[in-house]
């Protein structure tokens, strides 16, 4: 190697030696470049933060007062000879890939991203944020949360028809529909995707602040009310309630009387995971790329070198090697706070 790598792995996180900054570090550092506002990627305690402009609202909602500088998608800054820009990752509002360029070399760190299917189709884009944008590069650092061929997302129209069908069926028999999903990103995709004419929609207190941030960013979400504000329980009988997974089995759910519960996550693809969850329905809704999506995203970068992070690293590294690419992996500490990311058992 005549030239040092643009990104290396350090105890504090992924590090750019040339620019002396970290990307999504898990220990407190001086300069942190943040790909998105999920808790495992944007931690407290860094001195200065840099993120994509659309992430500002959600970042401040979650982290409060921080020293934050933002860039519009595609806007570049130069720092110690490294040119840095953010590009949409399609994962959640404000999520970004980080493009680094130095002396003609381009590296892209994906953070978490959402791309579904082998062929581009705007109907399959995440409708609550800017869709994933492929960025040409020499080296691509990719996530691999769902890096196995068993993960293929069904068309969103089918998925939301299933969710609507479940909600409508419950509403017809006078039962509340409690749909659990991660409060940032997943909850808003549910709200955006369901048929808002079926009945009223209520949310948990953890969800509403993020709804406000999404609405402020111009995302059209249906009207939602806090479940705790409801006086007359009859209002729940045809309602959809969106809440984080932590409410399962808690006293918070008692207010709904007789209800059907469901869980939205990419892991619901597997029967075993559905049965472990012990809910009435599991809907396969993910904010991460499925297997064909990972293939497509990686191919679109044109990268000859790929570094795999959090998920099925070993499988992806071997598969990419079989495809003739130079593949390696970084051990990161992502995925520990986001309930979409239990570690695989291989």
């Amino acid at each position: 190697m005549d030239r040092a790598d643009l990104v290396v792995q350090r105890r504090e996180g992924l590090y750019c030696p040339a620019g002396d900054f970290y990307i999504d570090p898990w220990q407190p550092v001086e300069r942190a470049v943040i790909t998105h506002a999920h808790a495992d990627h944007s931690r407290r305690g860094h001195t200065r933060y840099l993120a994509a402009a659309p992430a500002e609202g959600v970042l401040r909602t979650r982290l409060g007062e921080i020293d934050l500088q933002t860039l519009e998608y595609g806007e570049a800054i130069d720092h110690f000879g490294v040119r840095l820009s953010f590009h949409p990752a399609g994962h959640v509002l404000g999520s970004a890939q980080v493009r680094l360029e130095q002396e003609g070399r381009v590296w892209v760190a994906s953070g978490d991203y959402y791309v579904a299917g082998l062929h581009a189709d705007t109907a399959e884009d995440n409708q609550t944020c800017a869709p994933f944008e492929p960025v040409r590069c020499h080296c691509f650092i990719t996530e691999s949360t769902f890096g196995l061929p068993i993960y293929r997302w069904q068309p969103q129209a089918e998925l939301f028809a299933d969710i609507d069908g479940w909600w409508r069926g419950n509403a017809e028999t006078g039962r509340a529909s409690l749909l659990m999903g991660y409060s940032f990103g997943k909850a808003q995709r549910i709200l955006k995707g369901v048929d808002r004419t079926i009945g009223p929609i209520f949310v948990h207190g953890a969800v509403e602040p993020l709804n406000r941030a999404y609405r402020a960013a111009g995302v059209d979400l249906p009207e939602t009310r806090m479940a705790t504000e409801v006086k007359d329980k009859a209002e729940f009988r045809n309602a959809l309630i969106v809440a984080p997974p932590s409410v399962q089995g808690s006293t918070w759910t008692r207010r709904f009387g007789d209800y059907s519960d469901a869980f939205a996550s990419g892991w619901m693809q597997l029967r075993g995971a559905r049965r472990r969850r012990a809910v009435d329905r599991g809907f396969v809704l993910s904010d991460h790329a499925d297997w064909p999506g990972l293939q497509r995203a990686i191919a679109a970068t044109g990268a000859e070198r790929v570094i795999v992070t959090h998920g099925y690293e070993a499988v992806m590294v071997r598969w990419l090697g079989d495809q003739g690419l130079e593949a390696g992996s970084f051990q990161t500490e992502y995925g520990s706070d986001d309930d979409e990311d239990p570690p695989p058992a291989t």
Partner: protein
Amino acid sequence: MKRFAQLFAELDRSTATLAKVDALKRYFAVAAQRDAAWAVYFLAGGKPRQVVPSGVMWATACRAAGIDEWLFDACYQAVGDFSETVAHVLPPAAHESDLGLADWIEDRLLTLRGLSPEEQAARVASYWNELDSSCRFLLNKLIGGSFRVGVSKLLVQRALAEHAGIDAKLVAQRMMGYTDGRIAPTAERYTRLTTSIEAGVLDLGQPYPFFLAHQLDLPHAEFAAKLSAPEDWIVEWKYDGIRAQVVKRARQVWVWSRGEELVTERFPEIVAAVATLPDGTVLDGEIVVWKDGKVQPFALLQQRIGRKLLGKKVLADAPVGFIAYDVLELEGVDLREQPQVERRARLEALAAGHDAIHLSPVEVRHSWAELAELRHESRARGVEGFMLKHRQARYGTGRRKQDDLAAGTWWKWKIDPLSIDCVLVYAQAGHGRRASVYTDYTFAVWNRRPADAAEALAVVDHIARREPAVPESLQLVPFAKAYSGLTDEEFKVVDRIIRRDTLEKFGPVRSVKPSLVFELGFEGINRSTRHKSGIAVRFPRMLRIRDDKPLHEADTMAELEALLRLQHGSVAPAGKETAAAEAASGADG
């Protein structure tokens, strides 16, 4: 097939009995009779043998999905189920078939058997190409003979009965043997299950649905209050054998196992014994190995299980006998509505005249405490404890538990399991709902008592450095595997420790740095040449995690040897039973 797949999905995701019965009734209302015939067969537990070898299925799946075997294997490890893995990795179907379940089974599935592997592969791949993901999953399950869904036979019978507007007990009796695989399900057989008029004489060898017993988990001090006085109960020793019903009609004998399998040919001794009974007799009881005038350990009976060809040696080594404990039919009359005590009297009278039938002995004591004391003889007698049957109870159907403990339930009052404290050394991810979670563990004991904590830790370090064990030195000897007994929460904790402390991966198996001590319970223990430790335990399960026990205090081979002696009735029980058993005996004494 689609309709059946939809029914499967509804049954699979529901935990409410009522919702399941409703789903079944909706299916019966619309399904063609010959499709429903097969649906009932599968739902009630019928399993045709695997028609295509696993190897062929595996290779065909990799080819159809266009992925290498290692990648398919990685998928399988994550899913924990072959049929489901295939359903997920295949590309979408070219077109979807509208063929019904019966056509699929009779024309396409059963005809696969015996074809060349190439022909099987070609056909299976083309079938996959006309099914959606949920139907593919089902087809694979049916081909592999591993279809299972969360409905009991009783529930299927109930739904059929409600659908047809007849008594569920009648459906249950008509359904005996329906799933044993001797005759294929047909529209005609299905109609016979649900017809509202008495369909004339039943098949000659037809048994009655078994009445199943429940475990009694209650300190005996509460028996008097909750069960009533011992005088109201018939108390019998509980033998560890094969539950069976013997039928003698028209000078012919049938032997049915609890799995509703006709096992007549496997037990010629029983046939000879039952042949001496008058026609129109049906008895319920236990098949055991009977030698030297007494019951032998279950391990001997295992030599007879699954064996269809009986050589002279097996017949001499493990001769079986029938211990009768109930009479369901006498002189062609159904006695099941008679009280237990009446049936017992009729049974005793019958057995008095027929030496070939052994009678299950009854114990009479005036207090539950005396019976609890007597129960301590169980192991020495080679039995599992007591059965408690209310004197006034009728012979019910299936597994029916009632809130009122003193009502008609049969209770198993079993002795506490044998137990040993052992160390987790290997782990493997589970299947089904435990896929991707490490839930299947291998346990070891010390080959000798470690001198102190330091010596034990030195061995752990040695293992952690992956150095081969020094012969004759202190070592951990694996002796049992278990995968049940912990709560989901406990599994989560152990799973985390296993991931953290993994030493090596051998395919799906991980060796783990020894640190966790478990109390392992089991029903029996025997010598075995198949296991490295020389010991095999029966029904092992985890009783609890012994966080309080340091590694060097885990048990040794010597304690296992002591349990062996205890089990096989020799003197001086130097081994130990569970703390609960000790506490119980303390309270009694």
